[in-house]
């Protein structure tokens, strides 16, 4: 059999690869997507929050018939301590207006649906096939090699959308192995509950849903981030920790999950539920500073493969969708010129700079470092703030003024006044 | 093939319970006697009689044993062309008997031969067949046979019946029922039939028969299976597995991991992609109990598991849980058993 030739070869049928495939196929480009799983989403069993806006230009009538769970009307943010939390809640009737801001989704179903959109548009998706290396001509990527006999695919342009561990970005020398302090290990569980129980416990009705994002010291003072999302008949509960910290604190993901489930703020929400699925997964948390080179001769990198994860807001799939879309648009422009050199493809980086993707990633770019260098921010503040709230709210005959004084004293003792000022300034500069 | 137009469509004309007596080179399969025993019980409820049927080169010598286990009649077709089991002539012979004598129920052992034969006989007779059953009962109201069988690797049981077609056929797993002789056996009636086809009309020829267990083991044949997994640590350690199996008159097997590590040949793999077994005793040594393994053995009568991990899922289906190093435990067990064997306990 002769050469297999496509205009574009995409590695990975996740949100990034599939959105690129949809945009390209709709424009009549001959595109092939290679996926190593049994089907798109087969390696992504769990649920998450998916933002609607990024689907503009990919699937315009989203959600339409897409398999979504609940639309989110209330978001809770909690600073947690071993046995307490201080929270901020935002519920807004505007979140009940269509198009909904975001939905919870099950990735296995969602990715499958997205793949159907791609095939419907004319893209070809090949499953159960692993891309083993880029095919090079000098410095130029001219195709991909797969693990199958007669498995070479030649293409004008390759889009690497192969997820966190992006083998392609690594083998091109665009990035090095993930640093232990730039990757978190996430564990997730789907806990089945009655629809009515969820509606009652979270005070919602119909397809309304709630998310809770948590950060703080969950387990022996070790910094963790966690979330709870409501699905139709289950909640997704997840917790993540930077791998380096796990090693340092000698914690395994199971223990982390168990202590989250036992947390007094969480356990009543999941009581009586039955764990249906369990999954561990790596999340790149390095943000902007860990991003690899995004393009080269005949190649672009999109989604998690390019470390496009916003660790603060736990967004990822929307960045993946957007970057896939922009890579596709870049290809279309390059195809008009008939030139796929790094020079031409550099437009991709420009487009990303202009989009929210880079703006957001840049905005938070120092955060991971800040947190790493200043362990006390998450080690001590959550505890102090929780203690403070407790002191203030406890009625025990001590005047509020005296209480405030003692809290303040405690804080100064624990952290130091100038240090506190500096921290506030730093956080404001990084996040504000 | 048989002429279906000769088959009586009136199901009320069918009566009695038949058991197929399976034999190889004249040696009967034990399951046949298990079925005769069960058939007696069913016949008592139904108020009918039990008959045995055998086809072969020479099967008359089985008569005495067949009557001992409760058959009242023994239908025999003997001919040189039945020397080796072959699907087509066996089918045609049995179908002719069924068409002529109209049994209401026809039971066959769920062995390799029985499964091969029953599928084609049932289709030729255009009647229902319930495969691989583990339970048989007569519905007191209708007199129909209720046949119960596991599906989905034993996760679900289904009770099946066949109201409008005769005979009601099923294959029954070996070892499910006990073979018990009757108190005062009487010689029953022997009915001989002939077939009117000859060797040159049979297209299938057997060129070679190899009796061996190399590469081809029917694990379902054994009452005791001792299986090892990755936890056995080495191929050498499987010597203990084999020794224990041998002491217990059983055979040895393994998990897929053990197969992949080269400890056990694929032909001895138990599980979803191996064989499904249901022995009286299954001993799992160093096997974690992944679902793909469990579906192949969880219907065993007694399960004993030896595993260093007290949380291993194999324990969830085990009758006796032993949290020990199998490599240390097995020699001890073997030693004790040998003593018992020698000194009677």
């Amino acid at each position, binding site marked *: 059999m002769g050469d297999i030739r496509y205009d574009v070869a995409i590695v990975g049928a996740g949100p990034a690869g599939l959105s690129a495939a949809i945009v390209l196929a709709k424009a009549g480009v001959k595109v092939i997507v290679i996926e190593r799983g049994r089907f798109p989403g087969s390696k992504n069993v769990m649920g998450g929050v998916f933002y609607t806006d990024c689907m503009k230009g990919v699937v315009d009538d989203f959600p339409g018939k897409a398999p979504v769970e609940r639309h989110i009307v209330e978001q809770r943010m909690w600073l947690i301590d071993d046995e307490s939390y201080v929270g901020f809640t935002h519920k807004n009737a505007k979140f009940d207006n269509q198009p909904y801001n975001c939905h919870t989704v099950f990735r296995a179903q969602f990715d499958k649906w997205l793949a159907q959109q791609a095939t419907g548009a004319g893209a070809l998706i090949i499953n159960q096939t692993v891309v083993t290396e880029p095919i090079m001509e000098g410095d130029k990527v001219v195709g991909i090699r797969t693990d199958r006999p007669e498995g070479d695919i030649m293409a004008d342009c390759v889009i690497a959308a192969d997820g966190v561990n992006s083998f392609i970005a690594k083998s091109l020398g665009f990035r090095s192995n993930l640093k232990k302090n730039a990757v978190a290990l996430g564990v997730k569980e789907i806990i089945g509950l009655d629809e009515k129980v969820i509606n009652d416990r979270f005070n919602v009705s119909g397809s309304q849903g709630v998310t809770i994002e948590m950060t703080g010291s969950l387990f022996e003072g070790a910094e963790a981030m966690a979330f709870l999302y409501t699905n139709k008949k289950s909640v997704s509960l997840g917790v993540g920790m930077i791998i380096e910290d796990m090693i340092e604190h000698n914690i395994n993901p199971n223990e982390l999950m168990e202590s989250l489930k036992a947390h007094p703020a969480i356990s009543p929400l999941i009581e009586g539920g039955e764990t249906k699925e369990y999954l561990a997964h790596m999340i790149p948390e390095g943000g902007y500073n860990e991003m690899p080179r995004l393009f080269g001769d005949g190649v672009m990198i999109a989604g998690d493969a390019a470390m496009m994860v916003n660790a603060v807001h736990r967004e990822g799939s929307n960045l993946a969708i957007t970057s896939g879309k922009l890579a596709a648009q870049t290809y279309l422009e390059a195809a008009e010129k008939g030139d796929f050199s790094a020079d031409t493809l550099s437009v991709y980086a420009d487009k990303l700079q202009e989009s929210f993707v880079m703006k957001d990633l840049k905005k938070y770019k120092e955060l991971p470092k800040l947190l790493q260098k200043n362990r006390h921010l998450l080690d001590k503040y959550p505890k102090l703030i929780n203690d403070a709230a407790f002191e203030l709210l406890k009625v025990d005959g001590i005047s509020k003024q005296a209480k405030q004084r003692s809290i303040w004293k405690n804080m100064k003792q624990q952290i130091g006044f100038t240090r506190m000022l500096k921290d506030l300034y730093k956080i404001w500069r990084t996040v504000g | 093939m048989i002429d279906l137009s000769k088959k009586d469509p009136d199901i009320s004309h069918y009566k009695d319970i038949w058991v197929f007596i399976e034999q190889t080179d004249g040696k009967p399969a034990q399951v046949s006697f298990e079925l005769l025993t069960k058939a007696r019980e069913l016949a008592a409820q139904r108020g009918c009689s039990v008959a045995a049927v055998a086809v072969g080169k020479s099967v008359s010598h089985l008569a005495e044993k067949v009557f001992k286990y409760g058959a009242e009649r023994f239908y025999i077709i003997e001919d040189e062309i039945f020397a080796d089991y072959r699907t087509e002539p066996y089918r045609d012979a049995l179908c002719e008997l069924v068409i002529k004598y109209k049994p209401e129920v026809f039971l066959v052992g769920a062995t390799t031969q029985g499964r091969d034969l029953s*599928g084609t006989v049932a289709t030729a007779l255009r009647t229902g067949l319930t495969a691989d059953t583990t339970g048989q009962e007569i519905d007191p109201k209708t007199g129909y046979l209720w046949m119960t069988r596991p599906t989905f690797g034993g996760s679900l049981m289904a009770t099946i019946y066949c109201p409008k077609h005769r005979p009601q056929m099923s294959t029954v797993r070996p070892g499910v029922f006990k073979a018990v002789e009757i108190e005062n056996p009487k010689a029953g009636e022997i009915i001989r039939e002939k077939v009117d086809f000859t060797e040159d009309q049979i297209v299938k020829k057997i060129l070679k028969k190899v009796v061996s267990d190399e590469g081809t083991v029917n694990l379902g044949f054994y009452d005791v299976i001792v299986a090892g997994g990755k936890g056995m640590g080495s191929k050498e350690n499987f010597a203990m597995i084999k020794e224990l199996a041998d002491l*217990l008159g059983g055979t040895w097997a393994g998990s897929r991991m053990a197969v992949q590590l080269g400890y056990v040949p694929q032909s001895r793999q138990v599980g979803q992609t191996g064989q499904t077994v249901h022995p009286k005793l299954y001993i799992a040594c160093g096997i974690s109990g992944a679902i793909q393994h469990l579906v192949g053995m969880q219907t065993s009568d007694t399960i004993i598991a030896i595993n260093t991990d007290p949380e291993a899922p194999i324990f969830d289906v085990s009758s006796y849980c032993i949290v020990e190093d199998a490599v240390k435990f097995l020699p001890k067990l073997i030693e004790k058993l040998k003593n*018992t064997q020698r000194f009677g306990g």
Partner: protein
Amino acid sequence: MHILVFVKQVPDASQVRVNYETGTLIREGVPAILNPFEEHAVEEAVRLKDEHGGKVTVLTMGPPQASEALKQCLARGADKAYLLSDRIFAGSDTLATSYALYEGARKIIELEGDVDLFFAGKQAIDGDTAQTGPGIATRFDLPLVTYLIKINEINLEEKYVVATRLTEFGQETVKVPIPVFFTVEESLNVLSHSPLPYLIKAEKAKIELLSGENVNLDKQQCGLKHSPTMVKKAFTPEKRQRGATLSGTLDEVADQIASKIAPFLKKVS
């Protein structure tokens, strides 16, 4: 040489769980797969085709989703795939299934030419009945070779096949004329990694649809209503309870177990 393989899509039995409260199977979220035995049947058919020339056709009876299983066969190298799908077949037992597949196969012979070798799996992992293959063979009045583990020889001039099958006590090698019907064991071959062009072809291939209207059916033999066997009830076996954990020294535990299993000891002669 024309080879026809009967394939079935089945729920992955290992992922089916039981709801002990309702006594039903939880099939939700259980992936449908190609019955493992048929992977080997298609593999063998494609190898024989590569060696002797000809073509491989696959046929399944099932709901529209079953075309996924057919695609897998095409990706393994089958040339053409037929889906026999019609509400009239719903609820068929093995006798009715073998009838539907027999008529489907006859249609394929009409469209694609005579078949030399028929293949089916030893059994389907959902029902475990192992009856459908023998049933189809009987309806065609073909010689049946079950538990196939090896094709030793194919002679297309003299029109015979020499093949080896498993028996209760070992193996036997048989010689049968073509056309012949096989049901296959997994040990028949080791699955190969299909070439990429096969996968691409499979994704692009059109599945040929057959409905009850296209094939020459006697409706009196189809579906639940005309199946001789009926399901009276389905129930879950009693959940196995975790048994006792034996405690004591290694010696003591070995003693306890030895006495438990002593009745199985082989008699010394």
